[in-house]
């Protein structure tokens, strides 16, 4: 196996508040290999976006990385000073956010934003930067790119704007792109276009992707591996087909069962009762234990780490080896 492009080890993100410290991410570990697409899925508040924000160094204060480390290409990046991180962000790690309108500056033409980004990261002349910008827009499937480069973001539709955002993310030729819900604000027909575009471009440019989304369908057709998050922790991680078809963690089982499927008829959807705990009241032991249909004593007192569970790794005591239990 090649050396991972991104290594996240025991990442812990805290938000100090007046009423005490909230632990938003707790002991999150995963790798992304070069060119790999890792999906990060979970419900609102599970910590998926925070994980992405920590990697690109854009945690909103007072949030801070309180423990663990993030390595990009072997170099530690979580403790870099702001200016050093700025050089990496955009150049080596690109970012795509959910709302294509707020990620573009409404006062600058699309071309100016692209050219500025290209020149910030690559030593190229004005003319060459412009050529690159046009080529990027063409690659993202924007018709009449030479003309549209002079236009402002409001002259683009939602889907077209998201294409511009993807072009911006690719401008510095990064090796990793953190895409946070890139299709959530778009209609289904546009969503399909954007996903296949993202997939194709990242393959062509050899960029790895961390795709944060709550849409399992998008994950299923895009990703190589998927990490399922719950209450600030990764509860299951593995190849996408295994996580979807033979999930090992009871939460993943419930999550998959609660999605209405297109190819089968069910009178009722599987439902997980209750809701995800607030950060102020994360239960002792396994955070999922109050909602878990297969809970037993150990779950209520001891917190499970990721354990081998067939093809995937799941943080669940059901998968503890008998030998370990005896120990």
């Amino acid at each position, binding site marked *: 196996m090649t050396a991972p492009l991104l290594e996240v080890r025991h990442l812990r993100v805290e938000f100090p508040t007046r009423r005490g410290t909230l632990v938003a991410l707790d002991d999150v570990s995963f790798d992304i290999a070069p060119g790999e697409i890792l999906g990060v899925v979970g*419900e609102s508040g599970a910590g998926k976006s925070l994980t992405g924000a920590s990697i690109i160094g854009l945690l909103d204060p007072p949030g801070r990385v309180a423990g663990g480390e993030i390595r990009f290409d072997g170099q530690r990046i979580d403790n870099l000073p702001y200016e050093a991180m700025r050089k990496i962000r955009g150049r080596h790690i690109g970012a795509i956010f959910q709302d294509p309108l707020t990620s573009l500056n409404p006062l600058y033409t699309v071309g100016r934003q692209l050219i500025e980004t290209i020149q910030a990261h690559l030593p190229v002349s004005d003319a060459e930067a412009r050529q690159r910008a046009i080529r990027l827009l063409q690659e993202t499937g924007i018709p009449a790119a030479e003309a549209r480069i002079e236009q402002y973001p409001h002259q683009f539709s939602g889907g077209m704007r998201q294409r511009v955002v993807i072009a911006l993310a690719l401008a510095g030729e990064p090796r990793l792109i953190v895409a946070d819900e890139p299709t959530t604000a778009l*209609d289904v*027909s546009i969503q399909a276009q954007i996903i296949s575009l993202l997939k194709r471009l990242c393959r062509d440019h050899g960029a790895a992707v961390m795709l944060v989304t709550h849409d399992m369908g998008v994950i299923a*057709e895009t990703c190589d591996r998927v990490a399922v998050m719950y209450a600030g922790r990764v509860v299951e991680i593995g190849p996408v087909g295994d996580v979807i078809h033979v999930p090992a963690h009871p939460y993943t089982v419930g999550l998959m069962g*609660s*999605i209405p499927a297109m190819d089968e008829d069910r009178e009722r959807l599987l*439902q997980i009762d209750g809701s995800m705990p607030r950060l102020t009241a994360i239960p002792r032991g396994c955070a999922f234990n109050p909602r878990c249909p297969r809970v037993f004593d150990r779950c209520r007192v001891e917190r499970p780490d990721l354990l081998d569970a067939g093809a995937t790794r799941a943080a669940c005591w059901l998968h503890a080896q008998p030998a370990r239990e005896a120990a």
Partner: protein
Amino acid sequence: MSEADALVEVQGLAKTFDVSAPWLNRVVERRPRQFVHAVDGVSFAIRRGKTLALVGESGCGKSTVARLLVGLYRPSEGRVSFDGIDTAEGFRSSEARTLRKRMQMIFQDPYASLNPRWKVADIVGEPLKEHGLLTGSAGDRKSELKARVAELLQSVGLAAADVEKFPHQFSGGQRQRISIARALATHPEFLVCDEPTSALDVSVQAQVLNIMKDLQRSRGLTYLFISHNLAVVRHVADQVGVMYLGRLVELADKAELFSRPRHPYTRMLLDAIPDMHMSGRSRTPVQGEVPNPLNPPSGCSFHPRCPHANERCKIERPAQKMFGGALIACHAVEEGRI
């Protein structure tokens, strides 16, 4: 399409919004008045105790249809009849209150549709008071109200003790249940649900959809269910209508529509759904985007994106016709080209 057991019948419904620039700008800049045809000649019927789902992308007019049905907008053309009563007249007559009681609406955003300064008891109790549904004498009203609200909350899976709480103390899914409890307070026969689960996480969406299905069974409710999510629609609906730029392009029974989609737009939508069980499958990406409704294409409004469009589609607007159990507006289907 008139059916004996139809609770709601909609005939040629249209709604036009005036989006003209202010008068002075029009005069100075010589601009004409401008109109958006948000809903443009939509007809359907919903059978008692069944669910009709309307699907389509943003801006196709599905929410406008919902609002027209419950009387939040007045139709520009066409008529809506509810249990034989023309609602345009009904909402203005002395029977308006009775009519409103029989139909209720659930909105998309459970954060915006509940008054943050009211307790749950007031939110759910308001329709009971407003419609005079409390039977007891003045002295007993308070305890009766409390009992009724508690009962309503329990029917959607909340606790009776929740009446003392404010909306901010609930999660999104719980808030949507409060909306449902409020809608159920008047014992309506017809519920218009405008994207009721779009703002919710999947596991919470499953809870809300299950509750809605249970309530339909136990109370014999009729639903108009608006959604952009075809998988959700497939789960809840009996009949499905597909809308595009204010028009109904296909209307069919659920099984028919999902097994044999005929209209090119329906096929496109079905193709665009990411499918969980087909990992690695690449979708055929759909070309183009929804055109600007201010300036819709001539003829069939889908023709610029349609792979089967010909000259006729560019000029002539297709009428809705029956094709083997489905109502379809498409020249290509009519001519047997697809």
